[in-house]
């Protein structure tokens, strides 16, 4: 226990050290977080009336973002499988970045749910024994369970590995491997359960299609890894952490397969709805064509569709996949495409037209945008902090000193002479 405390203390010392760019970035995120918090306080004060949600469209931008982020988190598994099931070295070296991304994404998910509920003061009603968790009946109860489990799982795995490396030990894989393998079905479960949350509602034909869960998984395996490819390049450029080209290209190849399945399932769904042309076509029509003069989402969903198809082609052809310009364009297209398709494009048509045929066109208010921005900033902040610790540890630049208590940070020997240290410091994040 004393060692854990020493490790944490070392981490806090490390977190405070950094270049000007590191400080500017963190300050920027903190500023966004403060703005988001202020927007949330005003929402708490006035009630959810400050959002554009109403009885007809009772979930909006928050839940859209939540759904998308669950997908990003689930994608960590795309690194764990090649790394630990197939023991492919280039990815094994970077799998921990995926796990930490999952941790940050889960934090964002829980925040998005929190800001969406009307009575956050009653959150404890969800805690079993103290409150009542309606498990296994409610899919939302399932979601609470699997999301928290996935958060803890990834935190424990990454935490243990980093802790061991810090104390200059190889992590004992006989302990870690069962958890790592368990994180694979757990990742699939968070996404499946989130899909089922919508899927189980017979009142909403747009969601009540069994293709929903497979589509969720397929699109998650696009958006998450696309985000990671971009991150890998940032990390490679701004820190001295090595990420091999072949690892990046392998992830890109996996995205191509996932995107193909995603587009195929989308096509299957569109065919079924349009060809059978039942009353259930209305939400689909609203989304893709506009219905009864209501067409807010049409331009968005076509943007998403075009982006996804373009990105699929870019990732399919090896020449464009292995060219960093086209690769990055593809990643950005996928990220935006899936963000629209799995966010607003999934949630809002479930409510338009509503169950009694009323049309209420939803678009988020300024408060909703600010709160959402704050949560994204929080997620990036958490990820930045985690990387600030993880990368030096993996680079063997942050470990326990020879006295077994005090940490050794980079090339600085004298931790307490901060003025001098700051001047001569070559920070890993600014190199």
């Amino acid at each position, binding site marked *: 226990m004393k060692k854990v405390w020493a490790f944490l203390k070392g981490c806090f010392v490390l977190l405070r050290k950094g270049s000007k760019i590191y400080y500017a970035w963190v300050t920027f995120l903190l500023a966004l977080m403060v703005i988001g918090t202020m927007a949330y306080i005003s929402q708490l004060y006035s009630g959810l*009336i400050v959002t554009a949600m109403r*009885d007809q469209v009772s979930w909006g931008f928050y839940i859209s973002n939540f759904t998308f982020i669950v997908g990003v988190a689930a994608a960590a598994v795309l690194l764990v499988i090649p790394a630990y099931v197939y023991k492919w070295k280039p990815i094994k070296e970077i799998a921990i970045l995926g796990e930490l991304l999952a941790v940050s994404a889960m934090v964002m998910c829980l925040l998005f749910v929190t800001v969406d*509920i009307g*009575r956050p003061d009653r959150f404890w009603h*969800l805690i079993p024994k103290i409150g009542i968790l309606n498990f296994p009946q409610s899919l939302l109860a399932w979601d609470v369970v699997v999301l928290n489990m996935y958060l803890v799982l990834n935190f424990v795995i990454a935490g243990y590995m980093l802790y061991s490396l810090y104390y200059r030990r190889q992590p004992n894989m006989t302990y870690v491997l069962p958890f790592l393998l368990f994180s694979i079905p757990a990742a699939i479960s968070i996404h499946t359960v989130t899909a089922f949350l919508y899927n189980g509602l017979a009142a909403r034909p747009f969601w009540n299609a069994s293709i929903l869960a497979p589509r969720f998984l397929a699109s998650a395996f696009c958006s998450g890894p696309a985000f990671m490819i971009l991150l890998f390049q940032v990390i490679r450029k701004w820190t001295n952490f090595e990420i091999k080209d072949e690892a990046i290209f392998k992830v890109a190849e996996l995205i191509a397969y996932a995107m193909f399945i995603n587009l195929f399932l989308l096509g299957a769904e569109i065919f079924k709805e349009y060809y059978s042309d039942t009353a259930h076509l209305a939400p689909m029509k609203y989304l893709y064509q506009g219905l009864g003069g209501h067409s807010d989402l049409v331009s968005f969903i076509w943007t998403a569709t075009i982006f996804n198809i373009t990105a699929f082609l870019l990732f399919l052809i090896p020449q464009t996949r292995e060219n960093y310009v086209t690769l990055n364009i593809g990643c950005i297209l996928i990220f935006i495409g899936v963000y629209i398709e799995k966010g607003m494009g999934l949630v809002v048509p479930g409510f338009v037209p509503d169950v009694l045929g009323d049309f209420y066109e939803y678009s988020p208010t300024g408060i909703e945008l600010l709160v959402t921005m704050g949560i994204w900033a929080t997620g990036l902040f958490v990820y930045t902090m985690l990387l600030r610790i993880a990368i030096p540890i993996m680079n063997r630049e942050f470990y326990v000193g020879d006295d077994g208590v005090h940490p050794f940070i980079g090339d600085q020997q004298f931790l307490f002479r901060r003025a001098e240290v700051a001047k001569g410091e070559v920070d890993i994040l600014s190199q």
Partner: protein
Amino acid sequence: MSDKGTNDKQVFRLTRRKALKGLAAGLGALAFPGKDASASVWEAFFQKNFRELSRPERDRLLARLEKEYSAQFGKAVKVKASPPVEGVLFGYGLDLSRCIGCRRCEYGCVTENNQSRDPQIHWIRVLRLAKERGVDLEHAEHYYNPSNVPEEGYFYMPVQCHQCENAPCTKVCPVQATWKENDGIVVVDYNWCIGCRYCMAACPYGARHFNWKKPGLPAGEMNPDTHYLGNRPRPVGVVEKCTFCIQRTRELEGRYPACVEVCPVGARKFGNLLDPDSEIRYVIENKRVFILKEELNTQPKFYYFYSV
């Protein structure tokens, strides 16, 4: 709630009480300076689910609410918790051939059930449908506003909670804040609801409504005859719905729901489905009846029918 259920919860309740007491002692000292204030705020914050309250706890809660509401609205407010009557299962009939679309039921409901006036919350929604299309919700007009009803070529269909036997809304609630009572009424514990609105997504009849802001209920218009699970004033951030006027229908001298009473053409029928001589049974057995969205297997106790 049956005795068996209460016994099952015994152990569970004790552990929770202990946990909460510990937490209360710790946090309470820090958070609340005033002695009197802390007691009532504290009680409200850590109130248990209505179905898990013991008899004395429930009486205390009702007394506290009565005191609060009476002070807030400046009149003597009654908060009842009358249980379901044995041998009663409520059913509702709505005669589509009679309804003229005047929306008196909609506003009668608001007055009786203390809905928010600002913003307006209506538990009943009357749809205007074209006769040539029949019950085609996609083409329903929600905001019709002619100087006179009924209009040529249209019929009207009021929709409210169908009090489903197989209710999709209660199933999805993550904290069991909503449930079906033994007389078939689906109720919400407004003090337990966390406001996640999953039930609103699950309801196929648009029957659930959310308090997006603090309900605006003028003291003069407040109906002081209330039920804990029904028309008592609601807090912000929780879901509410039609309860077949639980504060009226459950009393021994049972009264009709306000919407039945106010309907000028007698299109609304209400009664006990278990009583073979009730009017609602007569309607079901002798009229052309249909169930809205029957294919969803929600098994509503709300029947549309045509008397002519």
